[in-house]
């Protein structure tokens, strides 16, 4: 019996889709059976980031409205047998999906997969309600910006009302270490203190992430970029391992230390 994790943020453009793609990929790298679900009906992206756009035949709305079986709509990843994607509909309206429909789909997928990663749309309307409906756990993504933290706070408030296994966990994305050091960006500790939920990972702002997602190759596949290591660390923490947080230092020495650390654990 698998576990469903929703990746949400409230605010748009903070990296939900990138995070979903990379956590999914990182979990698959560790030989877990993973299914990604894109719930952003009308503005689907996850397939693009995963490089699977050209394989879509059926989508989640087709499944909910009974035009195909769930298995038919699932797209197998081109790199891993373990990884599948249930794409969002691009043409339908958001109202086509219901919370009950989502719950059924997630419940069915949980029979088959270890982890269901649900990519949530921005906002707090029906799309959000649908995305969180079937989830057991939630991960909230924020960037170190006031507006993004404010929305994350709102989302945490809404998630706390839901009946989930544990309180949501936090990813701080797009950290620019030099700005954080100079005090121009909100400090990681301050964000964690304000939101008062557990931090599950920090991801440094890395040009490689944008390059990779344009190529349709999640960054988690690259062996040694900082963001890649960050995502793989998050996946390990999801599996229950204790992994120390990445250092914000830029110098090579620390990177080497992190590598060494990884080497020791593997």
């Amino acid at each position, binding site marked *: 019996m698998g576990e469903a994790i929703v990746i949400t943020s409230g605010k748009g453009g903070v990296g939900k889709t990138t995070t979903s793609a990379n956590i999914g990929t990182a979990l698959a790298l560790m030989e877990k059976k993973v299914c990604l679900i894109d719930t952003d009906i009308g503005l689907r992206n996850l397939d693009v980031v995963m490089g699977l756009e050209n394989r879509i035949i059926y989508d989640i709305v087709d499944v909910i409205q009974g035009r195909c079986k769930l298995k038919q709509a699932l797209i197998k990843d081109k790199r891993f047998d373990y990884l599948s994607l249930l794409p969002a509909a691009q043409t339908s309206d958001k109202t086509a999906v219901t919370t009950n429909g989502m719950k059924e789909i997630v419940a069915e997928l949980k029979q088959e997969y270890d982890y269901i990663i649900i990519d949530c749309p921005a906002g707090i309307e029906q799309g959000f309600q649908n995305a969180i409906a079937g989830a057991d756990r939630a991960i909230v993504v924020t960037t170190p910006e006031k507006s993004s933290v404010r929305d994350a706070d709102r989302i945490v408030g809404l998630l*706390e009302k839901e009946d989930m296994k544990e309180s949501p966990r936090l990813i701080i994305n797009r950290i620019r270490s030099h700005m954080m050091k100079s005090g121009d960006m909100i400090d990681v500790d301050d964000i964690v203190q304000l939101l008062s939920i557990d931090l599950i990972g920090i991801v440094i702002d890395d040009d490689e992430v944008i390059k990779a997602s344009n190529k349709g190759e999640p960054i988690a596949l690259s062996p040694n970029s900082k963001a890649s290591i960050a995502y793989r660390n998050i996946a390990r923490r999801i599996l229950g391992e204790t992994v120390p947080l990445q250092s914000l230092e830029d110098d090579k020495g620390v990177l080497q230390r992190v590598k060494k650390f990884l080497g020791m654990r593997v």
Partner: protein
Amino acid sequence: MLDKKQTITIKGTREGLSLFIEESASYNDAIKELNEKILASKPKNDEPVVSVRVKLGNRYLNEEQEKELRRIISVENRFRIESIESELIRIEDALKWQEDSEIKAINRIVRSGQVLDIKGDLLLIGDVNPGGKVVSTGNIYVMGNLYGIAHAGSEGDRDAFIAASYMKPTQLRIADYISRAPDYESEGVYMECGIIDGEQDKIIIDSLKVLSHKRKEISGFERRMNNG
């Protein structure tokens, strides 16, 4: 009949008249006798208006009855009713009174978009995040960080105040007064309170010790009585 104890007793005091209504008498008898007594006292023309305290003892008057009593006593404007005192209040009023004066302890975080609205005093053990709002009809005590909006005395009590372990609020509101954070970047303050300053006619933030002389009643006897 003649030997019966008087239903209405009027006593003169320094502050004016006290009017006792015997509590064992029926309401109708009391009103009848009162009416007679009031009309019987023929005033001299230049007599000043006399203030009256009505003491009901263990008698409860409903709204209709109280209105009638006021009408009878204040007829021809010779008497002014200072107060109507009864030893009794209704259960409904007592519960409301208790609710209004109780301290409600709540342990949670008030996050962006959430509103915590309570009757009486609020003791919040936790933070009020930016975009969050706490409202109470009495005082607000925050054991945590106050970043959002706090509104004390929401039903008009200007003596209400807001105290917090750490204060960096977006807005403080007390009764109908509003103050907001300055436009420039500022540090918050530890262990302070927001209170309406009568002289400046606005909300000020000051150290907690000003409460001991400006809001004496918070630790006073009367308040403890209220809280049972």
